[in-house]
């Protein structure tokens, strides 16, 4: 059996990492700040702060997160940054964009906080503010919504085409070309839009836009 201390170190390598120090002393300029353009975000963080107000910084979210290995700040650090109102750092970081909504943190949070929803709330701010760093993810979701607004159901081929066009990167579609072809050969995706009928979701989209002033 592994000694407990070793287990702890293996399981939570980030607790002793430099990255950790950085997040805790975020008020001093970090490499991250120097190398990236400053992000200005006018949206209010208050609703997200409300969601994580009771966070006790236990790190259960970080230990449960399948994407933590690819994040620059751990989820636990992100919640601290949210509570400290460090908008720039939050939206410089790719942590919230890497949440894949597996709901492990939400399930396990000892304070019962809606952490996945808090991640979504940050994604929504990034989308509203059109922060260039998240352009790709935002384009992916926005073009998905464009497709369902048009047809009521998603047309996978149309929406991937819209997405690639929005990326303005001629190489982007290549990663999906062979899969797209395989799916087409199996008759699973079609080049034709699915419906000719009216736009069944148009009135809902319009009303939400009106209520929220924007989407």
């Amino acid at each position, binding site marked *: 059996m592994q000694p407990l201390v070793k287990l702890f170190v293996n399981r939570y390598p980030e607790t002793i990492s430099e990255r950790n120090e950085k997040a805790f002393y975020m008020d001093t300029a970090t490499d991250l700040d120097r190398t990236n353009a400053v992000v200005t975000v006018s949206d209010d963080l208050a609703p997200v702060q409300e969601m994580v107000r009771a966070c006790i910084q236990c790190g259960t979210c970080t230990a449960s997160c399948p994407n933590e*290995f690819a994040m620059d700040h751990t989820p636990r650090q992100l919640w601290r940054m949210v509570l400290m109102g460090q908008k720039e750092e939050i939206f410089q970081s790719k942590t919230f964009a890497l949440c894949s909504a597996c709901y492990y943190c939400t*399930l396990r949070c000892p304070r019962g906080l809606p952490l996945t929803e808090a991640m979504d709330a940050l994604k929504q701010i990034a989308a509203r503010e059109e922060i260039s760093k998240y352009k790709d*993810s935002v384009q992916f979701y926005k073009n*998905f919504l464009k497709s*369902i607004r048009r047809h009521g159901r998603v047309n*996978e081929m149309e929406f991937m085409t819209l997405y690639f066009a929005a990326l303005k990167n001629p190489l982007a579609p290549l990663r999906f070309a062979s*899969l797209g072809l395989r799916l087409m050969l199996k008759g699973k995706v079609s080049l034709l839009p699915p419906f000719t009928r009216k736009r069944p979701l148009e009135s809902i*989209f319009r009303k939400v836009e009106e209520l929220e002033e924007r989407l």
Partner: protein
Amino acid sequence: MMKYQYYPGCSLEGTALEYNLSTQALMDSMGVELIEIEDWTCCGASAAESINHLLSLVLPARNLAIAEKQEDIRDILVPCSACYLNLKKAQEKTQKEPELRDRLNNILSQDQLELKGSVHVRHLLDVMAVDLGPDTIRPRVKRTFQDFRIAPYYGCQCLRPYPVFDDPEAPRSMEPLIEATGARLHPWSMGTKCCGASHMNTHMEVGIELVAAILRGAQGADAILTVCPMCQMNLEAYQRKICRTRNEDLHMTVLYLPQFIGLALGLSEKDLRLDLNLSITDRFRKKLDMS
């Protein structure tokens, strides 16, 4: 006769067509009637929640409101885990927060729809494990799979955040269904690990990492069974890329649960549309032909 309202969702009309057809074929063979919700629309997938919270609730609410018109059938069967969670979330939240329900109804009233909160959203696995169960399946088994070792993969959103029909940390609901076919279980701990969801489109390197770990955990099994079109696509579609870049043989057959159970019940590969799956290995095919 058991009856359910049926919400297939967008993927099941496209990339997950075989999930749709095998679910219908299996239910039909077990005497379960599925009535598709009229004019159903997209549940918002993971896109709406990433852009606007209100939109992410009103899109599923529209479908619930339509389903409520069919007053004699209260349960909506949903095979896609992402659709299931979105519909379930709208159901749960509007039950707990009457103000939210009023807000959504204000939007829905434009289409003369109203959500009252009388329908129950049920995942296909919930219906198969709880309503049908292994005792219904066992006597109908025509083809036994003694030589098969099967890895049940649950993914995330049918289990979390709402623990409805199974333990969200250590689920077992697929096990008695698999054992009812005579197959053995592949012991593994990857059944509840995330497949990366839409990361495959927006952060492919991260998605690939998660899928590779799941495929590695499944080695030794004959097939992985899934209950979600997104999990299925992620696990089956990138195997060549993963094997090539990692220089490792991680090829693995990935089937939808109703396809495997359907095979055991004697339904044909044609009815279950095994021709549409992307990663059935030659080894699996040979074994299947011999069983």
